[in-house]
């Protein structure tokens, strides 16, 4: 059995011209279930990389492998059931909260795991939310959490999280973090997590992928990355980020 996930020379060209590569030659291996935070300044292609892994955007070069089989060898639906992407601005499907939660069972024609759904909703602080409520009327933070629960009902092996806590208040953010670390610990779900919260990555991450200079500049254990980054670019990124978070904390 090969690695869980492998990225081989992944490249994405944003405009089609030779000078418009968003990133190139991204190589990484996820050997075992882990929490990997993807860091980098805006515009480095972090979300695009997640979308490529989630089979939503085609790479312009390179191959993504899941359990040693290239994406092209997989039935896409099967891949996406194992590797599921949660967007920064989640979309609620038409209908009620319950209809959103039942989406997975409807799509896969399986019985609805009501108890599991209820437990997940409670874990993210939505235990009191009325399931018959129109999902389009939820607040941004509620939508994000319902979207996360909806995806977890799919029981994926890898979750691609695109700044999923960015729109949450600190209380909900902690609830979501706890849920995600719980599914990682208990069910062995790998989290590939794009974030701008350095403190979050430091606290929760096993590894860090640092994207800069149109590539994956560093792939290191979280502790090593935060303690002694290899590149000057990462050092500056951490300095600036820590300063900003320090100021926010102070405020």
């Amino acid at each position, binding site marked *: 059995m090969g690695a869980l996930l492998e990225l081989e020379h992944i490249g994405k060209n944003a405009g089609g011209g030779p000078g418009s590569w968003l990133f190139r030659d991204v190589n990484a291996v996820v050997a075992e279930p882990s929490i990997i935070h993807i860091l980098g300044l805006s515009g480095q292609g972090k979300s695009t990389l997640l979308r490529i892994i*989630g*089979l*939503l955007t085609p790479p312009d070069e390179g191959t993504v492998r899941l359990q040693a089989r290239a994406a092209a060898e997989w039935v896409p639906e099967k891949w*996406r059931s194992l590797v599921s992407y949660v*967007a920064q601005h989640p979309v609620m499907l*038409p209908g009620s909260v319950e209809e959103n939660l039942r*989406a997975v069972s409807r799509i896969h024609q399986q019985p609805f795991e009501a108890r599991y759904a209820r437990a997940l909703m409670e874990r993210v602080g939505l235990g009191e939310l009325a399931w018959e409520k129109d999902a389009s009327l939820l607040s941004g933070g509620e939508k994000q959490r319902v979207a996360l629960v909806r*995806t977890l009902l799919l029981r994926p092996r890898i979750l691609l999280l695109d700044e999923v806590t960015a729109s949450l208040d600190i209380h909900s953010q902690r609830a979501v973090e706890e849920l995600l670390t719980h599914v990682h610990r208990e069910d062995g779900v790998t989290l590939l997590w794009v974030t701008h919260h350095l403190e979050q990555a430091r606290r929760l991450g096993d590894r860090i992928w640092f994207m800069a200079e149109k590539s994956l500049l560093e792939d290191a254990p979280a502790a090593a990355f935060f303690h002694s980054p290899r590149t000057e670019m990462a050092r500056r990124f951490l300095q600036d980020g820590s300063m900003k978070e320090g100021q926010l904390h102070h405020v």
Partner: protein
Amino acid sequence: MSDWALWLTLVFVLIAVLLSLWQRIGLEREIVISTARTAVQLFAIGYVLQFVFHTDHPALILLLILMMIGVASWNAARRGKDLPAVIWPVAVTLSATELFTMALLLGLRIIAPTPQYLVPLSGMIIGNSMIVCGLFLSHMKREVEASRGEIETLLCLGANIRQAIQDVLKRSVKSSLIPTFDTMKTLGLVQLPGTMTGMIIAGANPLEAVRYQILIMFTFSASAVVSAVLLSLLSYKRWFTDQKMLRG
């Protein structure tokens, strides 16, 4: 109609050109070209129809209908020009609609199998289906853009492309059919339709003209639904790449 009367109809074109010049709309060239094309195309088809009716050979009728399907497919497919080879599902849809409608009309002995019925009715059915196909592709384009998030959310939950795009397909089929049924609702109240008008001008009894118009409108309603549903089924995969990613 005498030749002189026909020449006199150019007065209407002249008025349009003069108005365009006076108001500096800049449409003179368009008006002249479209006038010339109308005259040339209609006379050409007039001579072709005369020849086909006179010869009364099934191969010629078939050839004429195939030409209509070809031109209509090309025209409707332009609405989906971002999609790969969408002309083929459109051509299959138009052919199947024509076949289905004609089979019913002939099978139920509603019309006689003569060129006088087959050619003009085929033209109208194919023309109407072409409009429905074009509308469907336009609506799909808009709907897919507007519902991109919804489609991708479903894909992320492991849905197949049919499940992911099902609601968008339904909405587009519905939108593409609304004009056909709206026209039927107001027929006779707002406008007198072409076939009926033509027959009355040519001296037919108005009630006889109405019967033919009803035949055409009922045929249109069925052929429109067949076209929209069939094209939706034949074309939805083209909105996705080979790896079932939404194009865009």
